[in-house]
């Protein structure tokens, strides 16, 4: 990663990010534990790229995205944005940083105040951070509405008068208002129809090209992430288990969880779909309040070894830009090589079968 072919600047650097929500119980409301929603997550986001963050429901993706913007008070770790540690900034400095980092929310209905007009919603960031005159503000609002493909006639309307896709465009326009560098897209397409999903994703890509945006794209839709992301991080139970360039991850997933996750993606071709071997995981996700000892995934891992129940695997780079947290690749180098080899062999077999 340090020697990526295009040496891109690291915009966001997350190190050992922890976000624990305390659990209080009993008459005295004493703290009896914590839900470890995000538990020691590290990754970099390069300027201008899209990092996809995938995982099943409740694995901490959204919490991670929100913690990144300091919408929660993080429990531990560092979030370096342009060299500044967001996790420790005071309220005033944080407010000054806000324009550079914005968010697009999952539910476009809930993320727009039903009592404000579209113009007022899009202008809110301008009201907060700029001293534009009324006319300039309106001009900027119209410009943003053009950019996201909303008719200017809609400025006086209220959110309930729009369809889901249009509402999401309003949310995107609001996020763009202050010319941010970095946008966290928190499942921006999960609440939309499939036909609208493509529109919104294409819009996000266009905007990225036009304004040089950097995205953290949180989603559980693996095919959509494959379409939009440059690199992909896979989360399981509060931890990133694998982080790799898109093609490497989709073609040769290393972590058993990633393999299982990818095997669940349906194939549009019925013939291919019929022969796909699914890796069915047994059991349920353990509670993030009480994660298992050792590797978080050891309770469901089809390839678990004895060491997995004892020691938490280290998250390390095993190939160029390919990070994984699994003991299988922490063994001696030759064993790792053989694992890679069997993988590649399997890949080749599968491709041969196609």
């Amino acid at each position, binding site marked *: 990663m340090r020697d990526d072919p295009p040496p891109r600047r690291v915009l966001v650097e997350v190190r050992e990010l922890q976000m624990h929500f305390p659990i209080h119980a009993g008459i005295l409301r004493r703290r009896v534990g914590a839900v470890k929603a995000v538990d020691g997550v590290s990754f970099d986001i390069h300027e201008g790229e899209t990092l996809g963050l995938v995982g099943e429901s409740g694995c901490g993706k959204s919490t991670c995205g929100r913690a990144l913007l300091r919408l929660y008070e993080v429990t531990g770790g560092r979030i370096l944005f342009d060299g500044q540690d967001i996790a420790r900034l005071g309220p005033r400095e944080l407010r000054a940083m806000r324009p550079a980092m914005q968010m697009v929310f999952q539910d476009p209905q809930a993320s727009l*105040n039903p009592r404000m*007009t579209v113009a007022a919603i899009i202008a809110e960031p301008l009201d907060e951070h700029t001293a534009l005159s009324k006319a300039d503000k309106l001009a900027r609002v119209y410009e943003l509405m053009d950019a996201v493909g909303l008719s200017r006639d809609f400025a*006086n309307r*209220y959110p309930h008068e*729009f*369809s889901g896709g249009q509402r999401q465009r309003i949310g995107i326009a*609001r996020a763009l208002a202050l010319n941010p560098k970095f946008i966290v897209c928190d499942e921006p397409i999960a609440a939309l129809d499939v036909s609208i999903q493509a529109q919104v994703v294409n819009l996000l890509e266009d905007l990225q090209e036009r304004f040089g945006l950097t995205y953290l794209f949180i989603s559980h839709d693996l095919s959509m992430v494959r379409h939009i992301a440059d690199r992909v991080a896979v989360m399981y139970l509060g931890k990133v288990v694998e982080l790799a360039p898109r093609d490497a991850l989709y073609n040769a997933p290393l972590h058993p969880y990633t393999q299982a996750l990818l095997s669940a993606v349906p194939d549009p071709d019925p013939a291919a779909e019929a022969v796909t071997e699914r890796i069915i995981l047994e059991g349920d996700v353990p509670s993030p309040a009480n994660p298992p000892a050792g590797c978080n995934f050891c309770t469901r891992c089809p390839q678990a070894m004895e060491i997995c129940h004892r020691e938490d695997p280290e998250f390390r780079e095993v190939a160029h830009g390919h990070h994984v947290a699994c003991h299988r690749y922490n063994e001696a180098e030759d064993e790792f090589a053989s694992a890679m080899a069997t993988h590649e062999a399997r890949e080749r077999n599968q491709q041969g079968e196609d």
Partner: protein
Amino acid sequence: MSENKAAPTGDSPALPRPPRSQWRDVWDQFKKHRGALIGALIFLSILLGVFLGPLIYPQDARLVPTGRDFIRLRDMRPIYVLLWDSGAKVDWAHPLGTDNIGRDLLARMMLGGQVSIAVGLAAMALSVVLGTAIGVLAGFFRRLDGPLMRLTDLFLALPLLPLLLVAVLLFREPLKAAFGVEGGIFVLIVTLVGLTSWMQTARIVRGDVLALKEREFVLAARSIGTPPRRMIPRHILPNVLSPIMVSATLGIASAIITESALSFLGFGFPPDFPTWGRLLNDAVDRMQLFPERVIWPGLAISLTVLSVNYIGDGLRDALDPRIRGR
């Protein structure tokens, strides 16, 4: 709301309309609510009658006739009684009759209405402002939630009537000195009624704010960096308006009633000073002989409360963009 519906109009050279004032929309919608319009009309005519009526109407509300006039003028029936009882004691100068010491009922209703409506509106305003402020603070700032809600519980647990009586005894004299006899009592009653009726509003508002705070648009505003002092008026208050409106309109009625209860116990306005509640209480004893003395003040209270309720209803609908335009 299809996406291409507005596309042709967008191409036309006509400039998009600049954002309209929200209050224009609100007024447009309010006009469409028939109940609210009728309510507003009735409330306005009650206000006019009560405040301008005494200027036209010649009778003095507080004059007790003496000597032979006392016998002649007391216990007069309203003129409409002539319809079924041609021998009734009526006088065109006293269209609603007089009470048992010869004071004109219509004049007393006008004077009483001024006080009752003023007490109702002022006490309601005080209790709604207090209740909303405490509810919003408790709901929005977690640290204040415990203390403020325990304070609310404390007020709810207080026995109100004894408390009011003690407060009246303690503060009547100093307030009289400061604001005059009637002014002092007015301030006292408004403050007391306001201070003892905000708790329901506070609880309801707190509950709504707690729910609102978790909505994504509040999170979105936080990600923009909106500080709480602008978050509350911009995002929280407009969305808790409905329960506030409801408790405000109900509050007027209960303020009028509480004032009459206080007057009845002898701790409100002086006995010769009419309010709607006092007129009712005075007339209860001989209700069967003189039903008009109960009916008219009762009707005035009901009409006021009802019309305010309808106005509140219309306002609430007009302020909600989701209902607007229907």
